Structure formats: structure tokens, C-alpha cells
């Protein structure tokens, strides 16, 4: 990569109790790149995202956003960096005490101090972008189906027009058609914003659709990183086993046999 990366991670380590979840992660994400991180359950994907967001403090290592070291930032400095981010949470994480449009407008009203009426218009526009009507905007999140909740969460993640968007398993728990709809929406909205995207998933169809680059994390390290077109010829047994979904191979799931 010739340009300096948007996100640069070096030697990132994090342990919980006796479990070393991240064991020296090195990763670069270029400006405007869409990177998908694949890996099995418990391989540290979510922890990696949360470290970058500052929700979890890493034990060791460096995370740079636009060349600025962000580990150890707190208070207002952290909030300033957080403004660059948008995040789509796995379960949606919509605020159930607020209406749909208030959820979407939240980052604008609370984070940026936009006037309510103006923020509502932006929220309606973003909702329309993900295919939801004004009638939905007045509902509460609990009244929506899973697919609709994901769309609202996507609208919320892009409402502040962030430079970097994270997607945490965006298609988990959706039927294949709705998953494809969400994938299309993600690809379209990332392209429209020109944002840098980082997604974690174990859904290969989703990964192929939204990624420029794919990185595979295994036992707390990045074991393969390449363009999406190269994934089928990665020459890495772990990657091959994962993308083909085989139980037999170098990755051993810890299953107790009867």
C-alpha cells in the first residue's frame, strides 16, 4: 500500500484471565478499503473491533487512526476520535426507550448537537436509504422484525456520515434473502460515503460481497491477509478449511465427543 493506512495496528495483545484472546495482531486498513475479518467463534474478532473502538483497553500494542495513536486516549480526546466511527452491532443494540427515528438521529442530536427537527429529516432520509418508510420511523424498535432492526441499526451507523464504519456480524440471524439485502445496503452505503469499512463475519457469502480485502484471524493472530479474489487460492490450509466449512483440517473445534 502506497498511501498511509487509515487504521494501523501493531502487536495488539489482550488477555482475559488465562485466555490470550489477541496474541499480537498486525493489520493495516487503507483509506476507502473494505476489509472483512473472518474467523471462527471465539477467535477474537469482536475483541479486536472493540479494542479499536476503545470499548476494551488492550494490554499491549499500538492502534493508530489516521496516524494518531489512540490507545490510552480518554475523555474528550477519545470522544473526538469516536466521531470518526460508526458501528453496526451484532444484535442491533437499538435503544428500546427511543423511537426508530430518534435512534437514527441519536448520534446527530447527542454527539453533534444538531437541532432536533433537522436531525429528524436526516434520519428519515437515511431510513429511506435502507428502504424504510416514514411510518416505521415512529415505531419503537421492539415492534420491528429482525431484518428491519438491522436496517435501522445500519441507518444509525451511517447517519453521522462516519469515516470508518464497523460491522459486527451484520447478517447473523437473518434469512439468506434478507442477508443479501443487508449486504447490498452495506456495500452501497459504504461506497456512497467513501468510508473505510471493517467487518467481522463468519458468513462467506457476505464476506465475498462486501469485502475488497479479507483477513483471517486464528488463535489471536492474523494468519492470512489478501484481496478477496485470492481467497480461493490462498495456499493456506486454515483459510481453505474455513471458507469451505469443513470439520476436518488444521483448525480443531473443541467438541466433547460422547
Amino acid at each position, binding site marked *: 500500500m502506497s498511501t498511509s493506512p487509515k487504521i494501523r495496528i501493531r502487536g495488539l495483545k489482550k488477555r482475559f484471565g488465562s485466555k490470550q484472546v489477541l496474541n499480537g495482531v498486525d493489520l493495516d486498513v487503507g483509506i476507502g478499503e473494505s476489509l472483512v475479518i473472518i474467523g471462527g467463534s471465539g477467535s477474537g474478532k469482536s475483541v479486536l473491533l472493540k479494542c479499536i*473502538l476503545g*470499548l476494551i483497553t488492550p494490554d499491549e500494542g499500538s492502534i493508530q487512526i489516521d496516524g494518531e495513536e489512540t490507545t490510552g486516549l480518554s475523555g474528550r480526546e477519545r470522544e473526538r476520535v469516536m466521531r470518526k466511527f460508526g458501528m453496526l452491532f451484532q444484535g442491533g443494540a437499538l435503544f428500546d426507550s427511543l423511537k426508530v427515528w430518534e435512534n437514527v438521529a441519536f448520534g446527530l442530536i447527542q454527539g453533534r448537537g444538531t437541532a432536533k427537527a433537522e436531525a429528524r429529516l436526516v434520519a428519515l432520509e437515511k431510513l429511506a436509504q435502507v428502504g424504510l418508510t416514514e411510518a416505521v420511523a415512529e415505531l419503537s424498535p421492539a415492534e420491528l422484525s429482525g431484518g428491519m432492526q438491522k436496517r435501522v441499526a445500519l441507518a444509525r451507523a451511517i447517519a453521522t456520515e462516519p469515516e470508518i464504519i464497523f460491522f459486527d456480524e451484520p447478517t447473523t440471524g437473518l434469512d439468506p434473502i434478507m442477508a443479501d439485502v443487508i449486504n447490498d445496503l452495506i456495500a452501497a452505503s459504504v461506497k456512497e460515503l467513501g468510508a473505510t469499512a471493517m467487518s467481522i463475519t463468519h458468513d462467506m457469502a457476505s464476506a465475498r460481497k462486501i469485502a475488497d480485502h479479507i483477513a483471517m484471524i486464528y488463535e489471536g493472530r492474523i494468519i492470512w491477509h489478501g484481496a478477496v479474489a485470492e481467497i480461493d487460492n490462498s495456499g493456506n490450509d486454515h483459510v481453505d478449511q474455513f471458507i469451505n466449512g469443513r470439520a476436518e483440517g488444521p483448525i480443531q473445534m473443541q467438541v466433547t465427543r460422547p
Partner: protein
Amino acid sequence: MLTLLRTIGAGFLGFLAGTGRLVMFAATAISHCFRPPFYFRLIGRQMLDIGYYSLPVVGMTTLFSGMVLALQSYSGFARFSAEGAIATVVVLSMTRELAPVLAGLMVAGRVGAAMAAEIGTMRVTEQIDALTTLSTNPFKYLVVPRIMAGTLMLPLLVLTGDIIGVFGGYVVAVYKLGFNPGTYIKSTVEYLEFIDVASGLVKAAVFGFLISLMGCYHGYNSRGGAQGVGAATTNAVVSASILLLIFNYIITELFFAR
């Protein structure tokens, strides 16, 4: 023997670490109480919820406490012909002890539990993480309004409880025990001093702070789904109730032990 010592030691260290975490949490929360931005609408909503909607519970509790106090002290004091003192006994017991403690315990059950459950659910569904990614400090948005409202509203509730409790005593004394209304009211106010009411209100403020602090703390640190939220709720109520009784003694000692 060594195992026993080790268990005691581990328990003690765990207790110290927990106390430290709680004190850090409280200090962070208090420091955020004095730094903008302030969410006045949320503080107002919490004040309504804690103050206004607790009125029936606190009213019923103090009414019947005042009534039973008059009845009990009458039947007891009659043994040494000191029936004339019951108005004083009722008003002093209510303002100094019963109204703050009973109102505190009722509010701990009603409000502390609700806080722990709501914040705990937000924690396990990643809504608290979502707040952070939307550039909103969860302490300011969730914890500060509750702690401020709890600390401000409990004294008002207790003041109302004082009046209702004294009224309960009056009703029993006048309509059941045949006291003269004028004499009863006169002896109610005769020996009442400002410090009796003031100490009760100081207690109430401290209790309000403790109840909302424990509700927020246990909710904020809840882990592991529905069961974790359930445990957080129980811990919030139990720890708030016990702390409340401990601080009740300490404050009484500070005010009246000469």
C-alpha cells in the same frame, strides 16, 4: 488449613477489589455530575419516576407506620401513665428514623431494582457500547441523571412521608384513642426541633444517592445475559438496603451522639 486461609484471603482480596471498583465508579459518576453536557430532560424524567411514582408506596408505608406507632406506644406507655408522650414519640420516630429508613427501603426495592434491570439489559444487549460509539458518554447519559434524581427526590419523598406518618398517628390517637385534637397537635410540635427533621432529610439524600448508585453500578457491570441481569437486580436491592442501614447508624451517630 492452608486451603482455608487461602479461601479467606481470596475472599478478602475480592472484597477489597470490589470496594475499590465501587468507589471508583462513584467518584467517576460524581465528577460527571458537575461537568457538561447535562441531560436535563433525562434528569426530569428520572425525578418524575423516582419522586412522583414512588409517592403511593411511600405514602402507604409511612401512613401505617405512624398509625401503628401511636397504637403501640399508647398500649406500652399506659403501663406507666405516660400516654401524653405519644405525640412526641410519633413525630420524633417518624422524622428521625422511620420515614427515611422505610421510604429508603421501599424505594430501593422499587427504583434500585428497576435501574439495575434497565441498565443491565442495556449492557448485555450492547446498548451501552452503542452509546459510546455515538459519541455519548454512558455515565452522563445513564448514571448521572439517576444519581442526581435519586439524591434530590428522596428528601422530598421523606418530607411528604413525615407529614403523612404524623397524620397517621394523629388519626389513631384522636379517633381511636380519644385524644383531644388540639392537645395532640400542640404536643406534636412542642418538642420537635429543626434538627430532627433536618437529620432525616440528610439521611434521605444519602440513601437516595446510595440506592441509585447501587442500581447503576450493578446494572453497569452486569454480565452474561438474562441471568446476569437478574443477579444484578438482586445485588442492587440487597446491597443498597444493607448500605442504607449501615449509613443510617453512622449518620445518627454523627447528628445525635454527643
